[in-house]
Structures are given as C-alpha cells and as structure tokens.
C-alpha cells in the first residue's frame, strides 16, 4: 500500500517535471515573475530587520549621567548606584577627569577647553545599563531614586529620545506588519497569476486526460507539484540574488558610510528565511488551487 503510494508520488513528480520541460519558456517566465515577488519580500524583510535592530540598539544603549554638587562624595553615590539591579557599570568622573573626558570627546575644541578651569566643571557619574533590564518604567524609576540622593544636582537621560524611539519602534512594527501582510497577499496573487498562465495552456491536455480516464487527482496532483517546484525554485533564485547583492555590498565596503551612524548591516537569519520559504510554499499551493479551480 505504502509502496504503491510512493510509486504514485514518483509518477506524479515525473509528470510534473515532464510538464515543466514541455512548456519551458512559459515556466521560466512564471519562475521569473515569482522570483521577483519573493525578492521584493526578502528585500523588504532585510531592510525592516536592519532598521528594527538599529532602533533596538539605540533603545538599549541608554546612558544616564548624574551630575554631582560641589564637594559631594561621589564614592557613596557610585556604591548606591552599583547596588541597583540592572546597572551594568557606574563610573565616577571628578572635576579633573571631567576635563579629560571632554578633551577626549571634543578633540577639535581643545583651544576652548584650554581656557576652562577644571575646578568649574562638575563631577559626574556615567551609568550604563544591562540591555535586558532597560525599559521605560525602569529608567523612570532609577531616575527618581538617584535624583533623591544626597549630593546629586541633576540627573540627565534622554527621556524624549527614548520616548520617540519607543514610539517609532511601535510605528515600525505596525507599518512593517501591514506591509508584510500586503506583500504576502501580493506574492500569492503574483504566484496565482504566474501559475494560471501555465495552467491555462493545459486546458486541452486536461480535456484529453479526462477522456482517457484520468481522475481529478491524476490531473491535479502534478499541477500542485509543478506549482511547488516553481515557487520553491523561485524562492531559491530570489534568496541567492539577495545574498549575492548583500555580499557585494559588504565586499566593496558600500556600508562604510553607515558605520558613522554605528549601523551594521546584517543578513536575514535562518528563521526569517524559513518564514519567507513557508510563504513561498503557501503561495504555490494557494496559487495552484485558485488557478486550477475552474477545471474541477
């Protein structure tokens, strides 16, 4: 029973391959159309993932600066801050090291810094947080706790920027999801049209097969296999093309200008590729089903 089913499947597969071979120009045209649709989807996903990662990096790399009053004891504040869960490091800068810090950060303004008396600069503590601990509520809480400490003059963290990033990320998520759904539907409709172009040419063949005693399964299963071969091949063409473009982009250092913004372009990871592969498989099944519906 199982071997007979395997034989049937092998036979259906052979028929599908034979069908592709016998209408090679039509099939190649369909493959190219489908490859284009999957390429657009993969390219969108690549851009989306990189934008999202960048925003997430911005969000997670939040730094808080605590300015201390004159003659305040920095050591006590540092010890207190280091005891807070979620704090990665807290570094104390005295008036003198404040000057060094400035000299390091704004090298081109040395002539101005030369005229500043380090004693007029505030001592401060720079706090870095663990990425996993950072959230809006967490930072607001820390802000309030540190602000109430004795000797603290001002606590600064870019609350507005953070707020904007969170809003932007939410916006990116929603728009991304809507666009992805749109591309998903588009890929099904493109696959449907491409497969329909191939199937419509089979009208005469289907009629002949019916007359000589072919069952619906005998006619339809090779069509589904043909559709799947088409979409899977198209998927591999599009992912290979995207990967080649990505490699060229990296090899010729076209991404060097992005380093200025601390942006590192990453390629899609296996689950993301698998998602688009799944969409390709679904497109093949749905496209064949819809375009062959009128014959059954």
């Amino acid at each position, binding site marked *: 029973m199982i071997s*007979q089913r395997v*034989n*049937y499947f*092998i*036979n259906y597969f052979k*028929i599908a391959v*034979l069908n592709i071979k*016998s*209408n090679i120009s039509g099939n190649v045209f369909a493959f190219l159309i489908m490859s284009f649709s999957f390429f657009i989807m993969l390219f969108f996903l690549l851009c989306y993932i990189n934008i999202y990662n960048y925003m997430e990096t911005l969000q997670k790399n939040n730094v808080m600066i605590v300015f201390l009053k004159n003659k305040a004891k920095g050591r006590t504040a540092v010890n207190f801050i280091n005891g807070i869960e979620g704090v990665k490091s807290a570094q104390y800068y005295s008036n003198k090291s404040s000057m060094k810090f400035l000299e390091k950060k704004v090298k081109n303004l040395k002539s101005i810094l030369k005229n500043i008396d380090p004693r007029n600069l505030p001592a401060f503590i720079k706090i870095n947080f663990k990425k996993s601990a950072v959230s809006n509520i967490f930072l607001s809480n820390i802000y309030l706790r540190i602000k109430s400490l004795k000797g603290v003059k001002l606590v600064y963290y870019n609350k507005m920027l953070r707020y904007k990033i969170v809003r932007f990320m939410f916006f990116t998520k929603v728009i991304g999801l809507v666009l992805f759904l749109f591309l998903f539907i588009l890929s099904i409709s493109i696959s449907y049209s491409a497969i329909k172009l191939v199937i419509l040419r089979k009208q005469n*063949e289907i*009629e*002949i*097969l*019916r*007359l*000589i*005693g*072919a*069952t619906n399964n*005998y006619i339809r299963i090779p069509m589904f296999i043909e559709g799947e071969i088409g979409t899977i091949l198209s998927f591999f063409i599009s992912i290979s093309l995207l990967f080649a473009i990505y490699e060229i982009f990296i090899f010729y250092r076209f991404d060097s200008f992005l380093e200025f913004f601390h942006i590192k372009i990453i390629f899609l990871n296996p689950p993301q590729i698998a998602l688009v592969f799944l969409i390709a498989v679904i497109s093949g099944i749905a496209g064949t089903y819809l375009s062959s519906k009128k014959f059954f």
Partner: protein
Amino acid sequence: MIEFSHVFKSYDKNYVLRDLNFTVNKGEFIFITGPSGAGKTTTLKMLIALENPTHGAVKFLGTELQDLKPRDIPFLRRKIGFVFQDFKLLPNRTVFQNVALGLEVSGIFGNIIIKNVSEILKAVELYKKKDEFPLSLSGGEQQRVAIARALVQNPQVLLADEPTGNLDEETSKIIIDIIKSFNNKGTTVILATHNKNLINMGRARVIDITKS
C-alpha cells in the same frame, strides 16, 4: 453488453436523438451511421458519460450510465477506449509517452508500461517512431497512435468517432484493418461514420440513427 433504450437527447429543445434503441453484444463490430448532425458523436459521448440522455437509458454491462457518480466516470472510461477524428494527442509528448498515458492514468507504472506500450506500438507498426512527436507524423500515423493509446488499456469496447474523417482512402483502409484485427481478438467496436465506403470495407452490422 451495451443497451440504448428509448434514448432521447435534446439541446435547447432541439432533439438530436429521438427514441434510439439498439443493443451491442460482446465482441461485435458495428457501424453507427447517419448524416452530419444526426447525433453519431452524441451517441458515442453518452457511452463515456460525457453526455446524458434527456430521456431513456444507456446501459453498459448492466449499469445505467446516467446514474454514475462523477468519481466513478474515470473508471468507466478506462474500460472504453475512444478514438477521435482529430486524434487528441498531446503535442508535447512523444508517441511512446502519448500511448503510455493510457496506462498511467490507470495507475500502472514501470516495466509493465514499457512492455505493453512497445507491444501495442508494434501492432500498429509505429514502434520505430516511438520517440517522435505527434506533429512530425502523418495523419494516418497520428490516428494509429490514438488507436494504440485507446487500446493499450485493453478496453472491453473501442469507440471510434469518424476515425478516418481526415484521412485518404488508402490510409483509411489501414486504420479499419487495424481496428478489425483488435475486434478479431475480442474487443467490441462501435465506429461512427457517414462514409459509405468505410462501411463497405468493414462488412459489419450498421445502425442508421437517422431512422430513430
């Protein structure tokens, strides 16, 4: 084996067949004749459940064909080989692949296909052209491929609708001889034609449906 009992067939209230009655016994060779539009093709189509009678009954091996469920129709068609006037071959498949289709649709695979298709192609004298495509063959050769495809399943009945309609007289005789040779081996044959010469060549029972 086959029974047409008070069969009427109309298209938009125009009757093509009126009270058609005949029976065909196993192993018989019969001609269905009548002028164009008399309903010869419709009569054959009823036997493969491609058309249903408006009234009356068509029986094959005791089963009323109009009662067949759609899923059973392919199995009926595997018992009945059909040869068409326009051959109905697949142009993108070779002679061998076209004939093999007759077996493949029945779920037969592998060496049996090679053996049976080779045998039938030898019988219709086309084995040497097994790898050629239909469009490179003459009309007579294409019709022999169609006959081979219809007979490769070893059907109980062979229906032929104007099988020599597009062929010259000499080629027609070859086709009739091939069909007769299979009839001599036990296949029931029903051949629809309006060609009197062909009927004379066949020397078999004639059913004139214009008289129905």
